[in-house]
């Protein structure tokens, strides 16, 4: 899922303190799955913000809502009534949701309540780890199901570098496996080590964000 985490509470309070009435909006999809912006988190953040603002002497009313998705206009529209009642909105959805609200409810200020930072899987309860870098040129078929673009700190395509620790972890972060160590081991298990001796050429990054802000049209779906 798209992964996000709460911004520091000081930052949020700093933004909200100048307002009278704020709508705090969550999203029931990605950010709910990473326990940052779902209904539960809205119901946690709202009292927390109210208490923090009151303590600092600010009088800010906070109302709440949670949309199924903040990246679909049909759901965003559901906020239309509440949006007229407030002088600011704080969204704890990913950056896509924040911008959807900002676009639809202009000129109301929309603040992000979270930092969106990765594409992850929930490996186990309470543990999320990056899996995809949205590089636009997927090589998972050649790396035995492990993505070195997202999971190697140096995005090596001909790894591993000399930084694999003795225990197979990465020198950059001792809690992270050297993904190339895993790729090599899996290749070996499948008798395909030879496939990794071919030199992988320099990547074409142009289909990712590196090629410029993406704008994709599907003629078959246009109206």
């Amino acid at each position, binding site marked *: 899922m798209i992964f996000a985490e709460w911004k520091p509470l000081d930052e949020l309070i700093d933004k909200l303190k100048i307002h009278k009435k704020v709508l705090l909006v969550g999203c029931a999809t990605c950010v709910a799955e990473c326990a940052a912006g779902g209904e539960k988190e809205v119901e946690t953040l709202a009292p927390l913000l109210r208490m923090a603002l009151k303590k600092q002497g600010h009088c800010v009313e906070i109302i709440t809502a949670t949309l199924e998705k903040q990246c679909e206009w049909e759901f965003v529209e559901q906020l239309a009534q509440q949006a007229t009642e407030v002088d600011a909105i704080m969204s704890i959805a990913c950056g896509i949701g924040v911008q959807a609200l900002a676009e639809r409810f202009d000129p109301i200020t929309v603040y992000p309540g979270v930092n969106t930072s990765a594409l992850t899987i929930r490996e186990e309860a309470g543990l999320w780890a990056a899996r995809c870098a949205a590089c636009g040129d997927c090589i998972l078929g050649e790396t035995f199901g492990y993505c070195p673009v997202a999971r190697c700190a140096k995005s090596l395509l001909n790894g591993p570098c000399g930084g*694999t620790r003795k225990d197979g972890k990465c020198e*950059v972060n001792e809690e992270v496996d050297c993904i190339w160590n895993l790729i090599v081991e899996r290749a070996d298990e499948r008798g395909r080590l030879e496939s990794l001796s071919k030199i992988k050429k320099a990547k074409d990054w142009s289909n990712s964000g590196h090629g410029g802000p993406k704008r994709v049209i599907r003629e078959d779906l246009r109206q």
Partner: protein
Amino acid sequence: MKMFVGSNLERRLAAGDFAVTAEVGPPRGPDPADVKKKAGILRGVADAYNVTDNQTAVVRMSSIAASKILLQEGLEPIMQIVCRDRNRIAIQSDLLGAWALGMRNVLCLSGDHQSAGAGGKLKGHPGAKNVYDIDSIQLISVVKGLRDRAIQEGGDSISPAAPFFIGAAWTPLGPPEKFRTIRLAKKINAGANFIQTQAVYDMKRFAEAVRRAQDMGLTDRAAILPGIIVPRSAGMLKYMNSNVPGIDVPEELIQRMKDAADPRIEGIEITLELIDAVKNLSGIKGVHLQAIEAEELLPDIIRSAGLLPRPRIY
């Protein structure tokens, strides 16, 4: 053997002499005098001198500039390039500039991640944007393209060609060990002419790795120079053993340093033993010496190893 570029290092290796390279770390400041000082200490003790490229992601004088200063001081540089900070456009541009300024040896590395910051001792720039547009093996191919086909990575030509003697790094003892020789082969296939290894202390395991490389025919195609870092204390060896991936220090060496009356002298003893061991290792063509922040030790060490004076190259 065909000469690519005729640098000191290349000719030394072509002549079959045991080569010596040493490292010069650029200063964390703009003063060329700092580079000249190190050049003065190390003049004449090695065939070529590695100039590091923002090593451990710490901003230092650029390797291209420091290399030029070395050249002006009469020393031959091996310009190190890392993939961490520059994309393929900047790297190729720097290579053309480096050649114009007289550099002929390059060492192609991935480079420490920007979170390194000198192992936590300095602030560094952990918030910098990661580049890693290409990796070290792709970089070797890029340099080979500029040299052999006068062609840029994207396909445009350059005129004339920019010939370099191409180096790469090898970490023979890191996991997955079985793959390390295959990866060495990849680097040599990509175009590497000489190889400098991560510091070796475990001679037995290193010898096995070199034998595997020899079996694959790699030691004939590229000159392998094992890296040796002069130990200064038991603590330093222990630290490297635990914290520097690819460095394995046998317990006996750590114990020797602990028991030594003067660890600094013992460290030099150990260095000389290691140099002697690699000199006698089949397939090894030289040695790459490093004395971290203690370059002044190297001239005596190299002399005591019987490697001075460096033979004239004709």
